[in-house]
């Protein structure tokens, strides 16, 4: 795995806690959960929208319905089983990525440009909107890319923070996107904005904010560093044919 990708997944993994029930998207979110399960959160439960529950992928999965996700899982349910848990408030954290995110935590995976005449038409929400709306909290995982960490997303696929967000839905508090990690740091929701609050071990706030118009706290702490054996402990074989 590319070092940047490992750092990105590790930073996200530090925000997952042992025993949590995690609804996982594909890519860095899945790798983050797999890393957490092999380090500080061995009892984490991984649920995928395909219906695979208590998953324990040994290789990086290409899709939520892939053999890598299904192999070794405790339960092969249905998509209805998965989303039912989410809606009834049983999922502690949803881990998502997107094409664009803004400081309010809005996510865009629909279009770049206008909806009617997009510059780039993206694949769409999938389960992202559902996860963002219904998980008890949401962790956003994004590469540090100023083209993607924008001032305002072109289209709100997943609503971020707003005054109505911190609300009890069906008796369960749904806090929305309370945190975002990049390979350079951690942003947490301060008031109405995702704000840099921690940096990758050895990094600086200016580096973690480089090229962004986002803001940081006056003092930022360091995230836990990659374990010294990370490259072997987290050595998931890449799926065949992957880039």
């Amino acid at each position: 795995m590319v070092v940047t990708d490992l750092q990105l997944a590790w930073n996200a993994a530090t925000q997952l806690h042992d025993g949590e029930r995690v609804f996982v998207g594909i890519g860095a979110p899945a790798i983050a959960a797999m890393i957490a399960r092999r380090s500080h959160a061995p009892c984490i439960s991984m649920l995928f929208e395909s219906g695979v529950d208590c998953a324990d992928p040994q290789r990086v999965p290409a899709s939520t319905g892939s053999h890598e996700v299904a192999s070794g899982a405790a339960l092969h349910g249905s998509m209805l089983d998965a989303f039912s848990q989410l809606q009834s408030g049983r999922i502690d954290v949803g881990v998502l990525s997107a094409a664009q995110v803004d400081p309010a935590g809005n996510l865009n995976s629909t279009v770049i440009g206008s909806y009617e005449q997009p510059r780039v038409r993206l694949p769409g929400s999938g389960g992202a909107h559902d996860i963002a709306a219904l998980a008890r909290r949401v962790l956003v995982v994004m590469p540090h890319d100023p083209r993607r960490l924008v001032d305002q997303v072109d289209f709100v696929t997943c609503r971020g923070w707003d005054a109505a967000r911190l609300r009890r839905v069906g008796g369960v508090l749904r806090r929305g996107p309370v945190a975002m990690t990049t390979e350079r740091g951690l942003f947490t929701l301060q008031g109405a904005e995702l704000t840099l609050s921690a940096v990758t071990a050895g990094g600086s706030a200016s580096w973690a904010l480089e090229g962004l118009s986002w803001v940081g706290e006056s003092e930022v702490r360091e995230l836990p560093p990659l374990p010294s054996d990370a490259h072997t402990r987290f050595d998931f074989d890449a799926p065949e044919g992957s880039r």
Partner: protein
Amino acid sequence: MTAGPSGSSKVVPLRDAVTSALGPGDTVFLGGFGHCIPFAAASEIIRSGVSGLTVCKTGADIVLDLLVAAGVVDEIIVGWFGNPGIGSSHVIRRAMEDDGLRLSESTNFGLLLRLHAAELGVPYLPTRTLVGSDLRDRAHHVVQVNCPFTDEELSAVAALVPDVAIVHAQRADATGNVQMWGVVGDTLTGARAATRVLCTVEEIVPESRVRSAPELTALPAHRVDTVTAVPGGARPSYVDGHYERDAGAYELFQAGSRDASWVADLVAGIREGQEVTRWW
């Protein structure tokens, strides 16, 4: 004493299954979710000449690209479209920009519940998703309602009844009891929502084999219209217990489908009767 056979055979050639199940303008649900993608059935749909279809699916696979490229689809109702784990769909983007393909998009759960409403036989279902967002504003068949018991605000999604569901599974008996294991995603919700079910399987097995393992039965015979043995019918996707996903095929499709003429050649080959596997 074992019971006798419980129905007449529903085993038919795939061509006959398609022509009997699908009519012009039908709404078709595509089964499979990473697993058991019905590529062979989709190829036969292309060969049949049926057109004007509306295709619905929560998270689509490139099988949708093939149908769209063949020009048999007027509208797609999806939560997500693309090449899973690889990237966006060149084919569908071109069809939307240049060929008037209509898109009705929602979220996976929102669309799943539309199908589940149909499965339940009710005109809508309430849900807590599809609240706030530009996506919600543009989602079709969603309205805001207040719970008649608690008065809380909910979304209501209208039932979506596909005319036909296309399903690929591991096995079935000749009467139409379909057994499926592994990842199912939205497959069975969509199949149970549909008016007709067309099923391809890796093998037809004796009814006694099905009845000795009823826990594997996903669709009972009375809900299935046709079954056809099509070994390899989900290639290049995977079928648990039979074959693995061919990741290279998906990568090759992603690269090749940037070129509309590459896709047109592929579709022409399918129409001429070549196996869908031709592209790799």
